[in-house]
């Protein structure tokens, strides 16, 4: 902003010229980048639409008539989807709990200020980075292949997926703690476990709980769609109804998912605000 101010003050001395905020070189760079982005964008749009019948205009015009098929949503199926809905929430609870436990050693291993042994730190960091690159549904597809259709592969996929996120966030929290209490404990002869328990845990606990709740929110969203690949929960019913072209039922399920996600996020947000 100081740049902007100085240019503006210059402007008062030469009022007949409209001042520019940026030097010529930056302008050239920005122009080049802008056109590169634009070209890639146009090409992407062309590429993604090449298989489309009738082009964008036709499809968007068509959209109205198709969306109309979804309405009015048929809420009569509500009793039938209650069980899978609860199952979805249970999957998220179990997965979040197990991930929250496994994540502790992993987060400690990948925090620079706790794991002073460099190779181990780099190893666990790389491991977590690789883990996070695999999307949750891909994990679910593989686990369904391994364990058959059901809740179990879904929970397993959620655990591994959330482990990557949670361990990274928590290790960053650990890296940001005040190191003085830890040094004081070490100086007065505390061993590693004592240092962690008495100097690290009290500093990290509120953020830890908040992050676990955050990951729980992510897991709720993820578990909703896991059923699409046969990994249990409400997604399975949604997939069936879409398969039967029963759009009013599908819309009812989508609306219920929407309400549940908003509700859980609201509760979790309130708890997190109270915590931190």
């Amino acid at each position, binding site marked *: 902003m100081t740049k902007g101010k100085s240019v503006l003050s210059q402007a008062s001395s030469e009022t007949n010229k409209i001042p520019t905020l940026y030097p010529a070189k930056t302008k050239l760079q920005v122009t080049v980048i802008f056109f590169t982005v634009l070209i890639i964008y146009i090409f992407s749009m062309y590429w*993604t639409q090449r298989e489309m019948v009738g082009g964008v205009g036709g499809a968007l015009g068509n959209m109205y008539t198709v969306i109309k098929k979804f309405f009015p949503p048929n809420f009569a199926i509500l009793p039938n989807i209650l069980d899978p809905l609860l199952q979805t929430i249970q999957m998220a609870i179990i997965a979040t709990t197990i991930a929250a436990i496994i994540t502790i050693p992993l987060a400690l291993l990948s925090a620079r200020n706790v794991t002073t042994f460099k190779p181990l730190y780099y190893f666990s960091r790389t491991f977590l980075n690789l883990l996070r690159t695999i*999307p949750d549904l891909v994990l679910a597809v593989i686990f369904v292949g391994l364990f058959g259709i059901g809740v179990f592969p879904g929970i397993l996929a959620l655990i591994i997926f959330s482990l990557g996120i949670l361990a990274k966030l928590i290790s960053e929290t650990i890296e940001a703690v005040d190191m003085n209490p830890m040094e004081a404990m070490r100086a007065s002869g505390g061993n590693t476990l004592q240092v962690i328990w008495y100097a690290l845990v009290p500093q990290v606990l509120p953020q830890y709980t908040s992050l676990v709740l955050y990951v729980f929110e992510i897991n709720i969203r993820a578990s909703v769609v896991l059923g699409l690949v046969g990994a249990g929960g409400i997604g399975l019913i*949604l997939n069936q109804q879409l398969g039967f072209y029963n759009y009013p039922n599908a819309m009812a399920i989508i609306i219920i998912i929407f309400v549940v996600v908003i509700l859980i996020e609201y509760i979790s947000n309130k708890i997190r605000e109270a915590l931190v």
Partner: protein
Amino acid sequence: MEQYSLPPKPKNAFMKRIRNIVIAIAVVALYIWTFTSIDIDWGRAIERSLNNFQRVIPKLFSPDWGALGEVSLSMLETVFIAFAGSLMAAIIAVPLAFLAANNMMGKYFSIIGKWILSAIRAFPDLILAILFVVAVGPNAFAGVLAIAIGSTGMLGKMFSEIIESIDMQVVEAMQANGANRIQILFYAVLPQIIPEFLSYAIYRFEVDIRASSILGIVGAGGIGTMIIFAANNRNWNEMGMILLAIIVVVTIIDFASAKIRQKIV
């Protein structure tokens, strides 16, 4: 020697204890309900895994290089979907963010804007993809639309938080000098927000690469289409190749995006 005693207990300690007990009971009840009513068929899971383990795991780690061409083409489509989608989202998110920021358009618009954004955010990407596949047909453009709408919710929220955190003194100074709204926007607001907007948009592209790689599962193009075919045909060598492609591309884009964002902010 001086005597030390504990400080007096705060007055609301009793209420706090009651509250903690209630929370503890609620959490325990939640867990009891969860673990007693979930039905995991352990027998089948163990039996299946014993049968499949040898068939699946080694194949995942010996990717089918013959599929490299097809996989890279699908992965390229995935990148295109993510790029077009996140750029669209970045553009749509800007007006919504100005609407939702409480220091720009006034309180009531801010509440409306925030509601719109959180309503969009509540839809998982794949559900949006399902809707768009029904609407525009099973092709990559449905994926682009799903990513665009899905990212708008998150980006709009981030953008509006950035707008709320700008230095309002600059805006006031310009108002005092008699600048009109357009001038204030271009000379006081935009210079403060553009670097962070770009940084979040690029970060969102990173997230969207991951999201768009699974959209094909519901027919919205990209590498997800191959994932679902490979799984249905139990072609685990090809699945290994797909996994490898996803890991490599996501890692490269994460790395590049981190470098660019460091430069911008």
